[in-house]
């Protein structure tokens, strides 16, 4: 066994930390929350230059062909920043799914562009009353000649308002089918939702949107099986991103406790504060092991569906405990807008229910355990 990252991964981590410290200061995070687009074109371009959007893309499509574990290293730093914008959407919701299901032509066309940061991708999966469930999906796609006509309303689509392509899951004759939809198509309307996390999610209305047959991903009616293969990995990606946030929360909280005086003592010398910080550390360390072990398993091609669900379930719950204690220790400072704690506090809330809440994941774990 080896718990350390490889030398290359350590370099990637350091590079990411340095880059984000310089190019994604908290002032930018703050600005992007207020900004309607929530996306800095400048920052995106620089990230593209570093090849980040091509990190997991095979060399034949112009990528770096890194592993899922490499991506995890990067996502942890992004969660720590915390990086605004459509990186997660493009890479995890878009590329990772396209890698799973796209045919050669589709990969050639879209992954090559994505790798260069030329297009932004996202995924429209859930609806107001449908959450990771194919049977209750009401958005439909009806075949008409060389095209499909998509109608329906998708909810909680991250970054749809700045995306070039949306992968849309829609009900077809005998199941769910995935379509790659050009957001310039007529009939698409994006309404920005205001989330607690200050991230950008949209309601996307598809009003008889025409999609050419060649934009079907994989086989017709088999879309959900692709989602089921992809979803556990996406959960891990989200878990790693959360991990970055709670690691940062732990560190800033400990720093605060070492600096803040009350009752003529550093508050970090109070046993209650010490135990809060210890509990945070236990949760962060537990999250770290789960997230990296499963990221490694994915990279190695070891079957790990159960471990993916386990990871998201634990990280969702643990991260909640961590941010609550972080604000508690940091007191007033922790809840003010001008401070940094609040970013992690708010983002945790969105992330823990995204791509599967812990209740959902636990039931999936039970199924994987053949209960």
């Amino acid at each position, binding site marked *: 066994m080896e718990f350390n990252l490889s030398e290359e991964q350590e370099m990637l981590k350091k590079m990411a930390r340095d880059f984000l410290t310089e190019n994604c200061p908290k002032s930018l995070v703050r600005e992007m929350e207020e900004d309607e687009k929530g996306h800095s074109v400048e920052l995106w371009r620089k990230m593209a230059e570093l090849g980040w959007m091509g990190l997991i893309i095979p060399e034949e499509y112009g990528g770096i062909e890194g592993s899922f574990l490499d991506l995890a290293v990067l996502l942890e730093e992004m969660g720590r920043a915390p990086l605004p914008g459509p990186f997660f959407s493009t890479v995890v919701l878009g590329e990772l799914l396209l890698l799973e299901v796209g045919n050669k032509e589709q990969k050639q066309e879209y992954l090559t562009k994505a790798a260069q940061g030329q297009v932004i991708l996202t995924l429209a999966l859930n609806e107001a009353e449908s*959450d990771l*469930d194919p049977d209750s999906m009401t958005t439909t796609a009806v075949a008409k000649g060389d095209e499909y006509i998509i109608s329906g309303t998708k909810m909680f689509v991250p970054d749809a308002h700045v995306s070039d392509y949306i992968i849309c899951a829609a009900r077809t004759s005998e199941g769910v089918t995935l379509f790659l939809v050009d957001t310039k198509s007529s009939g698409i309307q994006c*309404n920005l939702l*205001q989330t*607690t996390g200050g991230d950008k999610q949209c309601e996307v209305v598809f009003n008889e949107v025409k999609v050419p047959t060649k934009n079907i991903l994989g086989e017709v009616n088999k879309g959900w099986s692709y989602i089921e293969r992809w979803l556990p990995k996406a959960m891990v990606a989200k878990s790693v991103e959360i991990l970055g946030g709670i690691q940062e929360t732990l560190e800033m909280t400990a720093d605060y406790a070492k600096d803040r005086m009350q009752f003529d003592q550093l508050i970090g010398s109070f046993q209650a*504060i010490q135990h809060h910080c210890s509990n945070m550390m236990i949760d962060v360390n537990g999250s770290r092991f789960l997230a990296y072990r499963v990221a490694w398993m994915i990279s190695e091609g070891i079957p790990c569906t159960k471990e993916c669900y386990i990871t998201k379930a634990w990280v969702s719950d643990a991260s909640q405990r961590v941010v609550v204690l972080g604000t*508690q220790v940091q007191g007033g400072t922790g809840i003010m*807008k001008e401070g940094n704690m*609040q970013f992690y506090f708010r983002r945790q809330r969105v992330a823990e229910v995204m791509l599967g809440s812990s209740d959902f994941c636990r039931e999936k774990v039970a199924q994987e355990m053949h209960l």
Partner: protein
Amino acid sequence: MDFKFTPEQEAFRKEVRAFLKSEVTDELVEEVNSGLGLGPAGWEYVRKLGKRGWLVPMIPKEYGGLGASFWERFILNEEIYYCFPEFIQYFGANIVAPIVMEIGTEEQKKEYIPRIARGEIEFALGYTEPQAGSDLASIDIRAVEQDDCYIVNGQKTYNTACHYAQYHWLNARTSTEGKKYKGLSFFIVPLDSPGITINPMWTMGGERTNEVFYDNVKVPKKNLVGQKNRGFYHMMDALDHERMFPITHIQRGLDDLIKYVKGTERNGKLLIEDPLIRQKLAQFAIDIEVGRGMGYRIVWLQDHSKPGGHETSILKVFVTELERRLTYTAVHIMGQQGALRYQSYCSSPIAGWLEHWFLADTRRTISAGSSEIQRNIIAQRGLGLPRS
């Protein structure tokens, strides 16, 4: 034992409920939810409460109150909290008026209490400073005697309401000798006094609070309230005596959440049919009963004598931690819908308000004595464990 209200109390509750039903308008709710405190609708509403004597029900009639008991005050607040969970605190009515009534001069009582009672003026609490959070004895803003005035210099922070209140309920240092907590005094300071600067601070929930700077502010000696250098004791007495924690706002949250789960399908099933959700909601109903009981017990103790400080501490810890659990339970039940803020699209209005509450009320386990401080108090005063 007897755990029911008297018929008179029940009638009073009905009266309050009817009043609120007609007076709590959408406009008022929206204004309060802005996080800015009292605006035009708020002031109007407050004056209407004042007209009935409901701002300060326990104050004697001659000063504008009803001379009512702790029970009436509590019932009034139970109803207000239920119908209007994000309600603004009336610092003047709830904190300042009772203290002034107890320790103020006759002149001070006559000058301030009737105006508070009528809803004409509001006070902002001036306790916290950058270095004095949980540790209020470390208050450092200085008030130095000079002729018929005190000259005040220093800084306060997290002073909510300063931007719309007329007066500052200032706790300042009047002595630097001896133990720190033996040198504090209370002053009433008009917030438009020359030398006061008020800067906004924003919570992550979008609520405004303030930094306040005093630069050679002259405060007339007659504005000293209570005994000089006894300000810390007055502050602690007031906390013990006046605290109340209705939990009807949590009941409201649960009721709204129940409406939501009864009316919302997810994945082809009504949420209410999910056994996990049923357990979570039932647990909430259970916890609320506990909180309600603890709250009534404090009122009963207040009504009989002064409650021991640890009893209010138990209540404060329980209620504020319960509030937090409610907002987390809500998001677990509602999923992504639960993490939407309420200006935005959502299939039920509850989504937004619980989220608003989530962000705004995170401070409740921190402010007015953090949960950690409360637990120290419970152990030391309630169980007699030794101070460390």
